[in-house]
């Protein structure tokens, strides 16, 4: 399969007043088209930094990133969707209007906009909450709207930064299942960041273990389990153990 994203010798340093923090050092990574890639690592190892660079929010201090073979700076922002760890819904827009936002930006007309937005709200099982403002929604529902919003924009490349980290275990599990379901339907490339190893094994085609300070790739683990995955499968448990060990050693 061809490469969707190609990262070469990527480094990122934050220049603070009194010192320089090198968050990423020499990252080389290829992400295949349609792949579900999960990055794990301890807090502070540079996961969010990597995602922010791929999203185009910050510029790396070194290295090169190609998206569909083109330098990412020239790719613009048109083809990336982002789901954030914190709730980033717009409070002044209803669930439906939030999902419509990206389509509005693309210049899709009102009727089509509504249709597409409703389709994605349906995909995250929220059709009954279209006209509700975010502050009336639970944490899990908010993140479902955020997922629908990112997907409705129909990006080629989806970036998710610990999107379900703040939710309770049950809600998180159902949203993980939902994420896989949506991914299987749309087949978009996903770059997913988490520090939850169970989540990584459940979601990933391939797990990248980042080791901290400065962040570098410590290990790559291919998850060759069929979907939907069964967390009691011995192979699943073994992969969890392998990932845990890699995260600890890194």
């Amino acid at each position, binding site marked *: 399969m061809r490469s969707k994203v190609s990262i070469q010798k990527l480094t990122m340093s934050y220049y603070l007043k009194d010192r320089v923090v090198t968050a990423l050092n020499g990252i080389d990574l290829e992400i295949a088209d349609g792949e579900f890639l999960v990055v794990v690592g301890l807090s502070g190892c540079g996961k969010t930094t990597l995602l922010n660079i791929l999203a185009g929010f910050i510029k790396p201090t070194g290295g090169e990133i190609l998206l569909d073979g083109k330098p990412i700076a020239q790719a*613009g922002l048109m083809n990336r969707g982002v789901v954030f760890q914190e709730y980033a819904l717009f409070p002044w827009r209803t669930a439906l209007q939030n999902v419509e936002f990206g389509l509005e930006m693309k210049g899709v007309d009102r009727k089509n906009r509504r249709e597409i937005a409703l389709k994605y709200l349906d995909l995250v099982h929220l059709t009954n909450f279209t006209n509700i403002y975010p502050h009336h929604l639970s944490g899990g529902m908010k993140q479902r709207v955020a997922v629908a919003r990112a997907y409705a924009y129909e990006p080629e490349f989806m970036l998710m930064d610990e999107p379900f980290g703040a939710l309770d275990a049950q809600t998180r599990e159902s949203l993980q299942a939902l994420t896989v379901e949506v991914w299987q339907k749309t087949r978009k490339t996903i770059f997913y960041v988490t520090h939850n190893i169970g989540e990584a094994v459940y979601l990933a085609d391939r797990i990248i273990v980042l080791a901290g300070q400065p962040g570098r790739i410590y290990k790559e683990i291919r998850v060759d389990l069929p979907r939907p995955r069964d967390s009691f499968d011995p192979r699943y448990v073994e992969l969890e153990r392998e990932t845990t060990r890699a995260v600890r050693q890194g």
Partner: protein
Amino acid sequence: MQAEQEIQLPRASSMWEKTWQWCAANLPSFIVIFALWEIVSRIWGDPVLFPTLEVIASRGWELTKSGILLKHTFATAYRILGSMVLAISLGVLIGFAMGRYRIWERFWLPIVAVLLPIPALAWTPVVVLWFGLGDVTMIFITTFGAVLPIISNTWTGAKSVNPAWIRAANSMNCGGHRLFFRIIFPGSLPFILSGVRVGLARAWRAGVAAEMVAASDWGLGYAIFASREFLDISFMLCGIAMIGLVGFVMEKFIFQNIETMTVIKWGMMEDVQVGGG
């Protein structure tokens, strides 16, 4: 009554119910004050210096019927409205410039900090010498009173827009003026509204007070001050009541409704601190 108020019923009550509840809760205070006034005026026994409620009320009716009181009220309200339009336009513009551009922040911040504590009224003599008595002077003073809290709140609001909103918008190709109108403006609306509310209160106060010295022939402040020539205390009291009433109506019916329809409906009022006196 106290106990009833503390039990918050979850259902929405009708407008009549609300009005009734409001009266039941607040009327006793007024009744006590009126009773005290009546007692003092009877004891004092001077119908000119301390008129009874009946005298005041009949004078009030007279003034309302002839339309004089309303005419003065409109004169004041019209000046305040004009200066609010000016103050909001200027204040929001400067506040956003400060919140989004470093250089404007550096330029305006010391100016705002120095001017904010000065009562607008203090400028009256200066402005009267510049523009003479009348509307220009009045609008200048009230605009000055209103604009500073609007600037300072808009500035705070623009700076405190959640960066995650901006990034989310950016990731969907929303930048420049689209970012401003769709994200920055609604995102800072709770602060802007707080600023406008404080500004309006300041303008109303400064406006009425300035009319006493600087208005030429119309306006509540002017009318109250002028009626001292005729020892018309009833007129003064009716004017004062009118000032309170209009201020109350602006706050309760206009402002609270705007907030209820926007930032409160959106659940954005939880973490807003009101700034500016």
